[in-house]
């Protein structure tokens, strides 16, 4: 077999493994509500975005209005986490019990060295309160990971939810 092909395939497999591990680890950290640890997984230049989606015939038109539920840089994410930890965060009191299932991982290299684009699908199950029916939030994510000395960090996340109208009353959970 072609040597270059094998080299590329091995590199692809390494990248896939690295990205998949990162996403699985992130899901566990978030499900266990270790938000300060999650914050450490974020790049200083992170943009975390949850776009508003509307019903249109063409896929590209669904987010054409450039609206978002959330558009956070790292300083806004810090406030979000401080809120979750502050003790008076009623939307998450008691905290939602969550399970994140991450799959359909696709890794694409970019022109920037050490920067990967990672697509994934996330099914987030969330039970709020103590006796209400759980909500499922279905999300397609397009992430950018930066590989640094301490490992990968999340540089960009675009979490596109399937719903035009959210079926959960707030986004007190990270997607």
């Amino acid at each position, binding site marked *: 077999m072609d040597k270059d092909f094998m080299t590329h395939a091995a590199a692809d497999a390494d990248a896939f493994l690295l990205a998949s591990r990162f996403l699985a680890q992130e899901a566990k950290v978030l499900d266990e509500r270790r938000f300060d640890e999650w914050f450490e997984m974020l790049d200083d230049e992170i943009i975390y975005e949850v776009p*508003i989606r509307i019903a*249109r*015939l063409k896929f590209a038109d669904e987010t054409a209005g450039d609206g978002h*539920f959330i558009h956070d840089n790292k300083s806004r994410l810090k406030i979000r986490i401080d809120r979750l930890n502050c003790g*008076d965060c*009623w*939307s998450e009191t008691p905290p939602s019990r969550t399970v994140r299932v991450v799959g359909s991982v696709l890794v694409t290299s970019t022109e920037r060295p050490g920067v990967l684009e990672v697509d994934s699908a996330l099914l987030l199950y969330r039970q709020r309160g103590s006796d*209400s029916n759980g909500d499922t939030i279905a999300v397609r994510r397009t992430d950018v990971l930066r590989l640094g000395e301490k490992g990968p960090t999340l540089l960009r996340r675009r979490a596109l939810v399937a719903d035009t109208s959210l079926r959960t009353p*707030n986004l007190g959970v990270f997607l």
Partner: protein
Amino acid sequence: MYTYQPISSENDASYIAGLCDRIERSLDEGQMPADPFRDDRVFRAEMERIFTRSWVFVAHETEIPNSADFVTRRIGLDPVIVTRTRDGGINVLLNHCRHRGTPVCAEDAGNTTHFRCPYHGWTYKNNGEFVGAPEMQMAYGKRPDPKKWGLIRAPRVEVTHGFIFACLSDDAPSLQEYLAGAGWMFDVLFGLHPDGLRVLAPPERFVIRADWKSGAENFSGDSYHVGTAHYSATLSGFAAGDLRNNGNRAAGFLLDNGHSFVGHRLPEWFGPEFQFWGYPPELRAQMDLSNLDETQKELLTTLPITIGTIFPNFSFVRFPSASAPGRFPMAYTDIRLWQPLEPGVMEMWHWQLEYAFMPEEYQRESYIAGQFGFGAGGMIEQDDTVLWEGVARFAGSPWARRDGIPMHYKQKRVEPDPDWKGPGQHFSTTYGEYMQEGFWRRWIKDMRDHAREANQDG
């Protein structure tokens, strides 16, 4: 969760009549029964007596700026298409085909000159006029009368400051008459520049298992909840100051027809730069206040109007808030509909707007600041969503309903400001729950008015 509905020997109409009497007596004593926050009979009566009769906000003109633009919305439970025709006219059309009722428009927004029903192909212009149907000759012999078989149009559509309101009742007063003093408040909020405001992005929507009136009532004048419900905003560093004990920093405006507003003494609270909600001097310099009277101008400098509800389900908030830590708290303008879905369940629709003359980067930052505070991901609004759920649950309590356990509306009251020169009544504080009471008094008035119920007149 199961929705408890008390068994009753009364018919629906007599239950509603009795409930209105009960609410009136309760309010006279500073109390309120829980029923309206989740009850099937109440919900059905609201659809008939409030949402098909009131002026309901449907869209802002800047959402359909071009010829053939449309958005789909709801008036109560009824789906409507709001269209812009080539002559610039605005139409509010019932989104049901006249042939079998199938919706003719499936998108949330778009641009089209015609709507074609996917069932049999009946086709309409975007002003609602019937154009034709397939196999016309074979199927009908002659074309159905286009005057008679167009999409049903909302009988009343009026616009103020770009806000499009529709009313499904022929004999309602004009929009301005309906808004009454709220129109004067609209001038202070939305009339500061001839180019008006523009919607910055499509509306955000999410479902809350709380009744629509919890939102409407809260935004009519509940500053009291802020120090507890939103204290996380202080603890997390989201809010610039301490949100506790803010009720005396706020003042109330109780207007006719159930509309209410709140203003905050922002300059006194945060500093003189928060006249005009904190709009920067270079942008204030471009505002045109020539249409405002002295009282309106004074509000801008001492008591900017921050929150309000137009009966039944339209509210807004404009408050200074930083787009990120360290940034100057800037004004954003968030408008919302508390859209009824079912008893005790609503869908929140909300939009961010900004004055169109302001620089694009400023508008974008104001959008980010507004969305950081409000909406499903908002640092403020997330908490309201769950607290209002609790109100609907209380209304579904067999115990509360059997014993008529009342809610407490007895805050200490003061006389309205005798020197107030604007419309309605002005209170120097929001403690007192005047505006919430005003909302409910208006609600009773509409809920009692059943004389025009066509489906029952037969």
